[in-house]
C-alpha cells in the first residue's frame, strides 16, 4: 500500500461523503452543490474556465512569483553581503510580517492599475516576503565551524559564499518558496477580486454574485488544484537540486 494509494482513497472518500451529505440532507444546491454538480459545471464551462480564466490567473501567478524569486533572492544576498543594507532593510522585513497584506492590496491596485500589472503587483506583495525572510535566514544560519574550516583551507569570501552559504541556505529558500507558491494563488485571486475582467478569482466572484454555486465551486476547485500543483512542483525541483535529502521511507506500515 503506497502513500499514493492512501492519498487517493482519502480524496475519494471525501467526495463520496460530500455527495452523500448533499443528497441525504437535501442541502439546497445554491448553498452547497454536490461534487457531481461541480464537475458538471466544470465540464459545461470548460472553454471559459480553462481557456480564458485559468490561463489569466496562471499568468499572474507565474509572473508575480518569478519577480518575487529574483528580487527576493537578490535582496537576501544584498543583506548578507552588506551590513548597511541589512540594518536598513531588515526592520521592514520583520514589520511586513505583521501587516495584514490583504489590507494593503487595494493600495497596490491603486498604484499599479486594474490591468495585468496590478494583479502581478498584488501577487508580489504576497510572495516577496516569505522568500526574502527564509533565504536570508538560510544564509545566516551557516554552521560557524564549517565557515572556519573553509577559512583554514584558504577560501576566499566568494568561495565561502558559493561553496557553503549558498548550498546550506537552499532548504530554507525552498521552504520559503513553498509558502510563496501557495500564497501566489491567493495573491492573484485577491488582485482579481479588486477589479478584473478575467481570471478564476474574477470568475468566482461573479458566480457568487449570481448565486451560481456550482460554477463558483468549480473555480475554487481549479484554484486549489493550481496551488497544489505549484507546491508539488517546488518540491520536485527541491528534491532534484538536493539529492542527499532523498530519505528511504518505509514503503508500508
Amino acid at each position, binding site marked *: 500500500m503506497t502513500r499514493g494509494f492512501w492519498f487517493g482513497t482519502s480524496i475519494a472518500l471525501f467526495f463520496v461523503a460530500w455527495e452523500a451529505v448533499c443528497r441525504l440532507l437535501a442541502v439546497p444546491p445554491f448553498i452547497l452543490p454536490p461534487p457531481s454538480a461541480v464537475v458538471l459545471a466544470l465540464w459545461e464551462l470548460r472553454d471559459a474556465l480553462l481557456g480564458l480564466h485559468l490561463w489569466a490567473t496562471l499568468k499572474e501567478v507565474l509572473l508575480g512569483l518569478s519577480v518575487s524569486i529574483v528580487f527576493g533572492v537578490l535582496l537576501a544576498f544584498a543583506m548578507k553581503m552588506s551590513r548597511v543594507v541589512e540594518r536598513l532593510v531588515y526592520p521592514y522585513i520583520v514589520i511586513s510580517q505583521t501587516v495584514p497584506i490583504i489590507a494593503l492590496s487595494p493600495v497596490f491596485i491603486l498604484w499599479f492599475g486594474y490591468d495585468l500589472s496590478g494583479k502581478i503587483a498584488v501577487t508580489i506583495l504576497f510572495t516577496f516576503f516569505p522568500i526574502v525572510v527564509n533565504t536570508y535566514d538560510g544564509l545566516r544560519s551557516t554552521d560557524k565551524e564549517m565557515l572556519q*574550516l573553509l577559512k583554514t583551507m584558504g577560501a576566499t569570501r566568494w568561495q565561502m559564499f558559493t561553496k557553503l552559504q549558498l548550498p546550506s541556505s*537552499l532548504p530554507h529558500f525552498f521552504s520559503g518558496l513553498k509558502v510563496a507558491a501557495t500564497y501566489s494563488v491567493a495573491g492573484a485571486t485577491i488582485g482579481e477580486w479588486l477589479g478584473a475582467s478575467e481570471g478564476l478569482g474574477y470568475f468566482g466572484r461573479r458566480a457568487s454574485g449570481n448565486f451560481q454555486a456550482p460554477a463558483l465551486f468549480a473555480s475554487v476547485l481549479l484554484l486549489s488544484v493550481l496551488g497544489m500543483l505549484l507546491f508539488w512542483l517546488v518540491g520536485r525541483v527541491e528534491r532534484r537540486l538536493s539529492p*542527499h535529502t532523498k530519505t528511504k521511507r518505509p514503503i508500508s506500515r
Partner: protein
Amino acid sequence: MRDQLAFSNVRFSYTGTPILEDFDLRVKKGEFVSLIGPSGIGKSTLFQLIAGLLQPEQGEIRLGEERMEQRLGHVGYMPQRDLLMPWRTIVENAALPLEIKGVSKKEAHERVRQELPRYGLQEWADAYPAQLSGGMRQRVSFLRALLSGTDLMLLDEPFSALDGITRLDMQEWLMEKWQETGSTMLMITHDIDEAILLADRVIVLLGKPIRQPIELHVSIPRPRTVGSRNQPGFLALREQIWTLLRTEQSRLQTLGREA
C-alpha cells in the same frame, strides 16, 4: 631535523584573559605530538593560532622555514565534528580543499578517487555523509585535511565523538596513516591513553596563561598497537601525566576560590 612548526615568545590573550605568555613550541618534521591539558586552558586557541585564524600579539609563528603571517591554506585541520557537507558526496567533500586551491573539479575528483581505496572508502565514493558511520566520516575528514596539501596536520580531538571500540580502531588506523604519509601531526586530546599511544612527544599544557609547557618523550617502540598500553613505560607515563593534570586542577580550583 628541521622544525615544521615553531612558536617563539608568543603572547596571546582572548577578550582580556591572557592565554599564552612567552610561549615556545617546536614540532619537528614528521613528528607526532599530542597536546593535553584541562578543558578551557586554550588548546583550541592554540590551534587557531597555528591555522592562521588568529594572529599572535607578540612573538612569531613559523611554518617550515619561513615566518608566515598568512598561514590560512597551509595547515590541514581535522575538527572534532567531521563537518562534512551533507549535500556533497564523499568524493566531493574530500575534494573541497583542492577545489579551493583552484584545481579543476575533474582533476580534484580524480585525485580523491585514487586515494579512497587506501581509506577503505572506494565503495562509498558517491554516497552522502549521512549514509556513513562515524568512523568512516572521520576518515573522510582526515583525507580532506590531508588534501589541504600541507605537511602539518592539526587534529582537534578527532575521535572524541566515536564509541569506544571504533575509537581504538581509529587510533591504530591513524598510526598507520601517519607512518604512510610521513606528515607532521599535532593532536589535541582529552584522553591520556590516546595522547601517549600515538605520540612521539606529549605536551602537557598548564597554567593561566600557559608559559612553559611540560614535554614528555614517549619512548615506547613503534610499531605500537592498542596493546602497547600495558607496557610498563606506558603506565608510568600515564601516572605522571595524570598527576600533573590533577595537581593543576586543584591548583586552579584553589585560585578560583581565592579570587
